[in-house]
């Protein structure tokens, strides 16, 4: 439980002239659940997208499970095999059935025989409680169901770390709960998770640490209890007062 599985040090990123991430340092231990929050445009998405190299960066270093990812993005493939990601807009493949969505990467990236891949996929679909929808197309499902499929799809690759970028913000309120429940289950099984979300209930219940970002910097990081009870920074207080009204 002690060695960091994700280690970000001195990370800096610019979009053209715009300094979007500034000197980010963050260590995530194995099994740790981190919730990242902050105002819109503060760079939360950009930060977690750097971890699986969906974004390139100019300075600093990210180490995932001992694999170094520098500005030249050399070990992209190795890192992506360790890291699963769930997007705000699900990004399921609409032309494939739910089952095919979940077997595609195991078959084509890990060269697992189709039969085994399907068995594994069904196991994870059962875990997110939609095994009987396996032959539907994503467009025929509700948003909450789609997001749970997306979680199952990421899990079929046996990632060591899961990244969530606002997984519930595109959902109707009653669907938010089913997705959050799935994520809570996952957390209880000991998955290392980095979650960008504004669901403060989830943060209280599940997170080991809450990280607050503003203007491309981490300005506060604390246990959920302390974070919500005694925020240090004025910016954090303002944010919390707006979000917890």
């Amino acid at each position, binding site marked *: 439980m002690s060695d960091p599985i994700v280690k970000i040090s001195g990370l800096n990123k610019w979009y053209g002239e715009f300094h979007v991430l500034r000197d980010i340092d963050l260590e995530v231990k194995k099994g740790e659940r981190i919730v990242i929050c902050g105002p819109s445009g503060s760079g939360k998405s950009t930060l977690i997208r750097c971890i699986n190299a969906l974004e390139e960066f100019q300075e600093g270093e990210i180490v995932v499970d001992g694999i170094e990812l520098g500005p030249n993005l050399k070990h992209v493939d190795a890192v992506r095999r360790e890291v699963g990601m769930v997007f705000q*807009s699900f990004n399921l493949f609409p*032309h494939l059935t739910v089952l095919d969505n979940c077997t595609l990467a195991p078959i084509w990236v890990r060269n697992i025989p189709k039969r085994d891949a399907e068995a594994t996929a069904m196991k994870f679909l059962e875990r997110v409680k939609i095994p009987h929808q396996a032959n539907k197309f994503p467009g025929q499902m509700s948003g909450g169901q789609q997001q749970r499929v997306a979680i199952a799809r990421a899990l079929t690759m046996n990632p060591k770390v899961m990244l969530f970028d606002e997984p519930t913000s595109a959902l109707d309120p009653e669907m938010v709960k089913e997705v959050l429940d799935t994520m809570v289950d996952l957390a209880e099984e000991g998955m290392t998770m980095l979650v960008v979300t504004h669901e403060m209930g989830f943060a209280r219940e599940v997170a080991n640490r809450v990280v607050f970002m503003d203007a491309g910097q981490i300005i506060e990081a604390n246990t959920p209890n302390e974070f919500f009870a005694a925020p240090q920074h004025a910016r954090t207080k303002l944010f919390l007062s707006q979000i917890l009204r």
Partner: protein
Amino acid sequence: MSDVISSSFVRRDLLAERPAPVKTTGFIGLMRTRLFNSPTNILLTILGALLLWFTIVPSVKFLMVDAIWSGRDRSACLVENAGFAVGACWPYIQAKLPQLIYGFYPEAERWRVNLTLLLAAVLLLPLLVPRLPAKSLNAGLFFAAFPVVAFFLLHGGGIKGFGLSWTAGLLQLFDESILGAGQALLSLSKTSAIAPLLWVVGSLVVLLGTAIQWLIFPLTWLRDYIQGTGQPVWADFAITAAIVCLIAFVLGGGVRTGGRALASSIGTFIATAIVIKLMDLDHGGLSIVATNLWGGLLVTLVVSVTGIVTSLPIGIALALGRRSTIPLIRIFSIAFIEFWRGVPLITVLFFATYMLPLFLPGNFTVDGLVRALIGIALFTGAYQAENVRGGLAAIPRGQSEAAAALGLSWWKTTSLIVLPQALRHVIPNLVNSFISLFKDTSLVSIVALFDLLGSLRASFSDPKWSTPSTAFTGFAFAGIIYFMFCFGMSRYSLFVEHRLNAHRRN
């Protein structure tokens, strides 16, 4: 309890069906609800009916009522002999049908054309029906094996070697062109102002050419040795088969998993051997029918099918190239697409036919039909590239990001996620280009290839059949043929679109 059941709110027996008070079905209903339900619709209905009246009635009159159905020469289709204003002269089409289908293809050899068309139908039809099995084998046969077989069937001729000889020949040609360029530079350096530079570059090029010559020497030596044996084709075939099977075995995963790859490559070679033997390719094959004898529907089909099958991969490659992040590839793709789109097809065909031979090295000739084919394939490819690009642009970035996050490489993301979706979006546009390609094949008649329309025009000059209605009959016939093919493509594309977009219907 029984009180409740017997209460008058519960119906004892089912009511008989009753017709609607105002008729909404059948012809009357259709008229009431669709055709005459508003002043605008009444006007449109009347206009439509008039339009039909003025087009359908004369056509039917010309094609059927006033048509002449039998006769031996033009005299049957003349007003004097028929006694009324003659419409279509069908005996003329009947007499000219072989020419319209085969052109000047020798009569004794026409079975080869028929066999090719039959093979095409047998391979293509099952490919088009989604329910039938073995799609990849079927596709392999149609797209890889059939073109080769069709070439040797239609054109004739045999082979003198196999894979090894061809590879050696190709490498030698490549090497000779390098050596030639080096020597040209050296001879240029004798007169030029920048002589030393040219001399250095020329020497380097010659050196490179010589090095390659030595590198491929074992291959060329083996080729010459094989050609010296009594059975060059089969010796070469055996060596090529052994090498390819070995490579397939190793690439397929060696002893552990290579069995399948080995079996399928051995199967392919056995099938190839059977074809070679059946068509006698090792002994010169069928007699050669030069492409300038081909004509009629045969040329139309050869040109359009080749164009359709080759232009799509070209278009996909160009569209992907245009979106590439590598500047050289992107600039090349853009320049290529814009060049071909900016030039009319007629110019392309003229260039390919009359000017290209002037640029090619002396001993290197390309058949006239092949030149036209290449021109049309590249031309249509450029158009298809823009169609495909439209589809690619419609795929949200999240799709390739999700694929990347799952660890799929660029190639796999493109071929498994992006292209399948992009192509589905643009099926109508792709088929639109295919249909227009099919009709544009008639332009090849300006470069001395006699396609369906060309053969038809040639047949007009036959005095035996010259009557006032010959030309109209001929064009009507060609129109019907073109329409059948284009309409077929259009309907099939609708079917495919409907089927592939099943996931979008909720």
